[in-house]
């Protein structure tokens, strides 16, 4: 059968964000994929060096709204290293709280979208309704449903009083049984299993070759989690379980995410219950001297690394970051090869691509 090329994207309903693939197909089977990137390139790296160090807290948050806590967190951690600011224990715990809340919401969104791509609207709605618990938590605790604005240089901008803590724990109690039920559905429902098992496979060797990160790596047997390997904020005081699977297919990635949601609920309980007393952030705006630093954190999609260089002025000289989707996206070429047209969107979604993060 002769091959022909179909364009997927850049403005495609199944994709949350504009990404563009030229997919060469033979019948319904993908022969090769060419990724054309850059539709969401907004020149944020340039903008960061034009704005002040404090403005950039918010600008890094707007790089991507699904990882919108991880970016400013890593950025602030790098600036703190340069300025020698030590975050108070309460600030560290609250940072981790914000991190885990975002992780749960992000993972549930991805898992829900997977059902949507299978055409299983009821399950999609069900997962998204569960996610609404977390959205309400964000809106109530932080004031916005996506860009929570938790971080500032030297700590966090929000605080939890006793009422909010018990309310939060109550929300987690509401969430947990629903997650358990959701895991049950994703583990046994034939509609899900038939469509997601065995497609978009990335073998453990390929995972290492492409240096993929986050749930994609863990679904291919690479047990790497920044929270464990190089702990930041309060994670050195917690035991973070790192789930792994070896099949490396679309389904495994979804299951890893669901397991991580469960683990995050446990972590959140610990963090909220053990919340130490003290200030959340320094009273004064710190002075930022010249210097360079690296900060890493585990974004919902995996390892996020920030390199910041300052020169003593109020603007950073260079801010560079690498998001997990950067490598995961490149690995799509391997995952998509031999897939069917109907699975393209599913496979793309399975890496939970953050285009805006990647293209900046």
């Amino acid at each position, binding site marked *: 059968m002769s091959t022909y090329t179909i364009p997927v994207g*850049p*403005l495609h*309903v199944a994709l*949350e*964000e*504009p990404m563009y693939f030229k997919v060469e197909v033979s019948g319904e089977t993908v022969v090769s994929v060419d990724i054309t990137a*850059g*539709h*969401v*390139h*907004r*020149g*944020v790296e*340039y*903008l960061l060096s*034009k704005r002040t160090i404090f403005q950039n807290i*918010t*600008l890094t948050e*707007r*790089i*991507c*709204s*699904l990882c*919108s806590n991880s970016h400013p967190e890593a950025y602030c951690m790098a600036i703190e290293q340069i300025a020698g600011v030590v975050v108070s224990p309460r600030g560290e715990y609250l940072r981790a709280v914000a991190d885990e809340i975002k992780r749960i919401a992000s993972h549930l*969104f991805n898992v829900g*979208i997977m059902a*949507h791509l299978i055409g299983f*609207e009821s399950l*999609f*709605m069900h997962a*998204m*309704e569960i996610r*609404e618990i977390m*959205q309400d938590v964000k*809106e109530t605790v932080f004031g*916005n*449903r*996506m*860009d929570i604005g938790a971080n500032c240089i030297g700590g966090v901008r929000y605080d939890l009083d006793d009422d909010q803590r018990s309310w939060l724990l109550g929300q987690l109690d509401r969430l947990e049984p629903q997650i358990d039920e959701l895991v049950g559905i994703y583990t046994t429902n034939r509609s899900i299993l038939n469509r997601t098992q065995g497609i978009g496979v990335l073998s453990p060797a390929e995972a290492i070759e492409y240096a993929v990160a986050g749930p994609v790596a863990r679904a291919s047997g690479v047990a790497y989690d920044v929270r464990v390997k190089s702990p930041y904020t309060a994670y050195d005081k917690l035991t973070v379980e790192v789930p792994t699977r070896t099949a490396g297919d679309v389904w495994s990635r979804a299951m890893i995410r669901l397991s991580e949601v469960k683990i995050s609920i446990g972590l959140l309980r610990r963090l909220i219950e053990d919340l130490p007393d003290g200030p959340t952030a320094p009273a004064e705006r710190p002075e930022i001297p010249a210097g360079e630093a690296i900060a890493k954190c585990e974004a919902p999609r995996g390892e996020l690394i920030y390199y910041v260089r300052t020169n003593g002025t109020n603007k950073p000289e260079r801010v560079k970051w690498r998001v997990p989707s950067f490598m995961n996206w490149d690995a799509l070429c391997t995952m998509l090869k031999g897939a069917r047209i109907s699975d393209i969107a599913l496979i793309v979604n399975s890496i939970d691509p*953050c*285009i*805006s993060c990647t293209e900046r």
Partner: protein
Amino acid sequence: MSLTRSQIVRSLSARSPWLYRINAGSCNGCDVELATTACIPRYDVERLGCQYCGSPKHADIVLITGPMTVRVKDKVLRLYEEIPDPKVTVAVGICPISGGVFRESYAVCGAMDQFLPIDVNVPGCPPRPQAILEGVAKAIAVWKERL
């Protein structure tokens, strides 16, 4: 007589606004909130007669997010042309309204209303689903006038 008939037709038609969304380089916050607004039981746009459509040719109300990057500009404009009149455009989030925080970048064209007519703005970063619903309701009112 003909006037009343067209009025009836117009008010019936106004109860079927189909939505289409265009991402012009957004950070995905507004898109996630749009998906939430459009598809989940809690906000249920179907109550307003809305439904999401996969083709621009089926659309009546266009929701645009993102600061219009240089790369997508032509594609967005082409897509916008494909949508049959009468149509109403809603800018969701501050990026399409003013360029937002990405204004002044070399890769961003800035405010969307320089390139295509915008009818309703829903500021926010991102706006909450209720605010988007409010914007859609405003857009439906505008649309009814154009039918």
